[in-house]
């Protein structure tokens, strides 16, 4: 399986890359799949459960919305099996907003993916927040015209997902907690492992690929680029503008906010503030301004209080 790094994600290395783009018409090429993720960079993708919330998110400046039946905080509270959302709800949201619409399917549930793709969703999230449908295999994402984003806790997991065809990655964090600690852990883990790989020679890379269960060619490409070879967003626990800016300063390309917006006291205001914080992530003055007077943040859960079998980040193989 060959892999083409998204165009200009990093400065081109050598003239060899020059004629990489095809002049022959191509639909759903990896370049346009990864390209949409490149267009989302520097933006905030918000979880919404109905048209009303989607419109609030769009008006706040979200660069995309994730349509789902329950936000992760409620999935966590309600328990039971969490599945893809009602197609009617997704279709209503697609019709209501002009920004891209994403939707979640269960890990390994390729029929949910076929259904969601047929609705005209712009991106599919094969998500650990829903109850996995397959405990060994993820979806073969090359089979789909619509691009996929997948979660990761570490470099090996990210590269396995990219090998399966994911055109975008998000660090998992721990969704529905309003606690950014796991997002930071996963982001730092990926970065540290990339730095480690960059220092290795080829024979060490072969061994490291085995160790982290990553495809060698993707590990080598990652080491060469010095970053994940697709767009990488932060997710899972971002609740404040400062959380969002923290993830950006740690090197993420953008931010998913799940329960953090609509489980807070003033969703529209908080959503606007997080959008500003992602653009101006390096400007503490702006961050102070937008953090002012936001009302109640979502309550938040300490990770140590969550029973081990209910940690979403452990789902995915």
């Amino acid at each position, binding site marked *: 399986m060959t892999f083409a790094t998204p165009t200009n994600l990093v400065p081109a290395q050598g003239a060899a890359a020059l004629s990489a783009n095809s002049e022959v018409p191509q*639909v759903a090429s990896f370049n346009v799949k990864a390209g949409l993720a490149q267009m989302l960079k520097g933006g905030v993708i918000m979880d919404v459960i109905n048209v009303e919330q989607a419109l609030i998110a769009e*008006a706040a400046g979200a660069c995309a919305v994730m349509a789902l039946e329950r936000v992760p905080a409620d999935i966590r509270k309600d328990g039971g099996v969490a599945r893809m959302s009602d197609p009617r709800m997704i279709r209503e949201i697609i019709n209501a907003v002009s920004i891209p619409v994403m939707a979640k399917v269960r890990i390994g549930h390729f029929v949910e993916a076929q259904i969601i793709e047929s609705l005209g969703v712009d991106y599919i999230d094969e998500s650990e927040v829903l109850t996995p449908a397959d405990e060994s295999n993820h979806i073969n994402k090359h089979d789909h015209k619509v691009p996929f984003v997948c979660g990761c806790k570490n470099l090996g997991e990210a590269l396995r997902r990219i090998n399966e065809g994911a055109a975008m990655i998000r660090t998992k964090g721990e969704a529905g907690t309003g606690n950014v600690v796991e997002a930071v852990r996963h982001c730092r883990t990926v970065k540290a492992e990339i730095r480690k790989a960059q220092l290795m020679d080829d024979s060490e890379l072969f061994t490291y690929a085995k160790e982290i269960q990553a495809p060698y060619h993707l590990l080598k490409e990652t080491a060469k680029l010095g970053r994940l070879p697709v767009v990488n967003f932060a997710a899972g626990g971002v609740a404040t503008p400062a959380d969002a800016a923290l993830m950006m300063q740690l090197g993420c390309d953008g931010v998913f906010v799940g329960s953090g917006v609509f489980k807070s006291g003033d969703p529209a205001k908080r959503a606007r503030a997080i*959008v500003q914080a992602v653009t101006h992530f390096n400007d503490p003055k702006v961050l102070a301004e937008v953090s002012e007077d936001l009302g109640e943040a979502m309550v938040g859960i300490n990770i140590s209080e969550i029973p081990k079998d209910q940690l979403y980040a452990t789902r995915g193989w």
Partner: protein
Amino acid sequence: MTQEQQEQKQIRVGVLALQGAFAEHIILLNTLPQVSEAVAVRNAEEISKIDALVIPGGESTTMALIAERSGFWPALQEFVRTHPTWGTCAGLILLSECITSGGTLKGDQKLLGGLGISIKRNAFGTQKESFEAGLHVEGLEDAKRLFPGVFIRAPVIDEILKPEEVEVVAKLEQDYGKTPKGTIVAVKQGHLLGSAFHPELTHDNRMHLFFVRMAQDWIAKHQK
């Protein structure tokens, strides 16, 4: 390159960095010897230090809202009115006078304007319909060689409102879904350039060169 062009001053190009694929533009602009430096622009101070601006692909609603709420909109609009500016995809939408269809926010989307055209947003449909196709672009170097057009949830130019001022730069070479061959996908008007596709998602810097030369010529004429 003509003698005259070689003698022209290098220019400093800013890329609007509120949201979207701004880093990709900066990478390609930095491959051009005509560009002294390509920089990210997020506020009024940064825009005051550049000669020309690129508005990248991304979400046009998002960019407009961020610019407005951070108080940057007036400075941005003034720059676009008076300096060479190129919009790609979302940037093309922001530079157009009006949106014919595909806009939401209940028709409330703010536009910078300047290009006498009306725009159809998401003209080809959803992401599934995104595609790559070769284009002939008027005025490019080595113009016979097709330019790789990358269309991602792309808009098209629905109508030219000021035919005496707006030049067509590129059209679709064949039908795509319901969008017919000949649909306009790039235009030029005075100091403004707009393209529905994403040259920043190619390794071909000819469109960037085209814009930078256009900007140099305009600056030489107007800022003596």
